[in-house]
């Protein structure tokens, strides 16, 4: 069973639309939730969320964590064709001693922004 679940799996929008991507995670050993954008190769870091209810913003992108619901959303406003990519959500988990860390990815949301 997948630990990190993203939805939708794919999304097609027009330029200027606003999109919301969802990510749910497991609570076991949870430390942080990270969002990445993957275009051609390596995922590019977007946000790291550790505290619930605090929105992080970067330009047209914003993200927030809800620890009660074990979920996070990534919002993109006024989408552009350059936003077309796979958006990956990942859970950073650590053991109780904090000596072992692991990043577990969801399957990603493929966002296509058409002109």
């Amino acid at each position: 069973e997948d630990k990190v679940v993203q939805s939708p799996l794919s999304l097609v929008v027009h330029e200027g639309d606003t999109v919301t991507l969802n990510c749910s995670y497991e609570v076991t050993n949870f430390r942080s939730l990270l969002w990445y954008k993957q275009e051609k190769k390596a995922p590019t870091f977007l946000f790291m969320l550790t505290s619930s209810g605090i929105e992080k913003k970067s330009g047209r992108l914003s993200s927030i964590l809800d620890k009660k619901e074990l979920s996070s959303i990534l919002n993109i406003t006024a989408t552009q064709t350059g936003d077309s990519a796979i958006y990956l959500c990942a859970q950073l988990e650590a053991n109780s001693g904090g000596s072992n860390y692991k990043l577990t990815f969801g399957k990603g949301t493929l966002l296509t922004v058409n002109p």
Partner: protein
Amino acid sequence: AAGVIQSPRHLIKEKRETATLKCYPIPRHDTVYWYQQGPGQDPQFLISFYEKMQSDKGSIPDRFSAQQFSDYHSELNMSSLELGDSALYFCASSFRGGRYSGNTIYFGEGSWLTVV
């Protein structure tokens, strides 16, 4: 700013051969992670190292091994290569320090391995 450096960027090997991928983490980062991403798949965690010791192990095949050296660079060794090993191999690094500090994980560009 310096990023995670991986080499080689592309590698073609035949079945049953051996391949070695190298990863140079961001300076002062003490933790290295290896991921494998097959075509159309999400990245799968293989193994991680902290301060040159294996930290966590994921879905790494027995044919693969990895280590982190004194200069913190890491190598992923893959033997008896199979066609299914063809994938993009990512290395990532972070700074954990002496305590958890909400470290961010940064990825390299990846190494493309094609097994023919």
